[in-house]
């Protein structure tokens, strides 16, 4: 399915509705991406004000989710779409839920950043969180790019990358446990780091989900819970 397939309708209005809807989803994605980037910056640079700002801005993501949901309902009711259009709407309804959750996790990271900024900082200034955060934000970005370009290959790429994120999360967790055992006074701080890492790992999972919806939208097959090796064996044309 090419982008032009989505615009091949007799009714121009329907075309425009669908294109606008797609743009809204991607705008929401952009907002979530920037929230995530700012949250990571806040935690890495110890900027409590930025962290709080991220937390306060989460309402924008929620507002967008509600209005996109409404628009989807309206299109379903008025146009009764079929085939690829129906898949698009179904995929969008699911995608925005995951985007909203990513927004929530970014909000949490923002809060944690403001809390961590008040505590003493380790000499590496949370390098491992930065690495994980960069990795995860790339996944979100690539997931949204795959959504925009209906690019199944890129979507598979992101799904595959999630394993790397899970491993990195494991490492951070183990490292945090070591810190807490070495110095029980740091438990409070390190617990916050663990929460932040946990949030980032969850964001990776949500990005993966979005890519699975993209595959569903383009190819019409459900690759959830099938294991990546099975899914990618079928040629992705």
């Amino acid at each position: 399915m090419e982008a032009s397939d989505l615009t091949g309708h007799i009714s121009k209005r329907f075309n425009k509705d669908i294109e606008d809807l797609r743009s809204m989803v991607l705008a929401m994605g952009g907002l979530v991406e920037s929230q995530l980037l700012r949250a990571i910056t806040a935690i890495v640079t110890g900027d409590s004000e930025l962290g709080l700002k991220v937390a306060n801005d989460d309402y924008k993501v929620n507002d967008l989710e509600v209005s996109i949901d409404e628009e989807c309902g309206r299109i379903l009711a008025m146009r009764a779409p079929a085939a690829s259009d129906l898949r698009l709407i179904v995929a969008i309804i699911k995608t925005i839920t995951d985007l909203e959750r990513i927004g929530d996790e970014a909000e949490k990271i923002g809060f944690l950043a403001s809390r961590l900024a008040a505590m003493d900082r380790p000499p590496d200034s949370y390098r491992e969180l930065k690495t994980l955060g960069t990795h995860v934000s790339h996944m979100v970005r690539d997931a949204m790019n795959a959504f925009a370009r209906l690019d199944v290959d890129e979507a598979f790429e992101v799904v595959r990358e999630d394993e790397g994120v899970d491993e990195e999360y494991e490492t951070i967790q183990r490292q945090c446990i070591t810190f807490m055992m070495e110095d029980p006074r740091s438990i409070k701080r390190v617990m916050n780091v663990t929460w932040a890492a946990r949030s980032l790992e969850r964001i990776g999972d949500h990005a993966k989900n979005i890519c699975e919806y993209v595959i569903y939208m383009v190819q019409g097959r459900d690759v959830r819970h099938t294991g990546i090796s099975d899914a990618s064996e079928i040629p992705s044309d």
Partner: protein
Amino acid sequence: MLLFLAAGALIGWFYGQLLWGLLAAALLALAWQVRQLLSFDRALRTDNFDDFRIGEGIWEQIYSKFRFERDRGLRQKAVNRQLLREIRNSTDAMPDGAVVLDANNEIVACNRAAKGLAGLKRKKDRGQRIDNILRDPKLIGLINSNDHQQSVEIPSPITDGDWLNCRVVPYGAEQKLLLLRDVTERIRLSKMRRDFVANASHELRSPLTVISGYLDALSDAGDLPADWVKPVTQMRNQSLRMKHILTEMLELSQLEGAGSASRNENIDVVQLLNDVRIDFDRPADAAEIKVNAESSATILGRKAEIESVVVNLLSNALRYTPQSGEINLTWRSSSDGAELIVKDTGEGIDPEHIPRLTERFFRVDRGRSRGEGGIGLGLAIVKHVLVRHDAELEIKSEPGSGSEFRCVFPPDRVKVATPTALS
């Protein structure tokens, strides 16, 4: 042709059938013309003129005219293709990214730099809306707004830590050009400058504290020789002044680095004005200060910063207003925002100086204001605080009759609350 018909008529007349001869000749001529027409048509369609017999008369003319136009068209096409290739090569050589957008913000074309800077894919992204690919909320806002003077800086979608400056330039009918420029280096430099100022002020403060501490001790000690009293007092005053400058420079560099101010605090402006008026440390012969509370609205922002705006504006006003004068602090709000006005009846400012007032270390009268404690950073701080609160500073002044400093806050920073909200 006429000759041919005449020959036909002659043969017909010879046999006594003039009209029949004429008709036969005309039919033959017609058949030949039709054949010629068909073969010309076939030659046109197959683009192969080898089999086409040009013949004479009108056909020769048509054919030569056609050949001429066709060759000219081909030459023109080659020239155009060459031109297009050169234009494309030159836009590809441009270091800045350029994306051509149509009325629906769909990508029509982009150059190589746009590919490198923003990760656009030339073929695949044609027809895609630009805000589907570059999704930063600030850029979406810029594209949708019709303000083509502004530019925004967004994090690069390709390289972490890089920044892109984006501008939208409209052209032609409904078309737009999105220009992207890599400003990573500029942002890094300005951050370095800010950090330098902050670090330098910070480092200078500690030795200065020692110096002013000893000077304090010296001047407080009663046994200072008489001819040392004046130098020590002056040194002490100057070291205090220096400390003050460093504090303000530090404050300014912090304000510059920070983005938009958070909206966490709900500032009761009327109370703030009254507090500042009462607490303000002013000489006994200062002008009278009045507070006009025309509104009970509050500002969402940072209280300490708004307070420093009021203090700075008020101390400026006091400095230039004689004792007989009057200073008015006014707070009023309406549906399109709120205004904090500091108006004095002092000596006023020359119109030529007004645009430069908020520059760092700018003084209208260098000799004069240094003696009276002005540093030249106050209005710069005011301006930066207001920018951080999305507000604007408007300055009106008339030499001789006074000045008016007006801080205009946008409606979304103003909360029209009941006065009991903050007690």
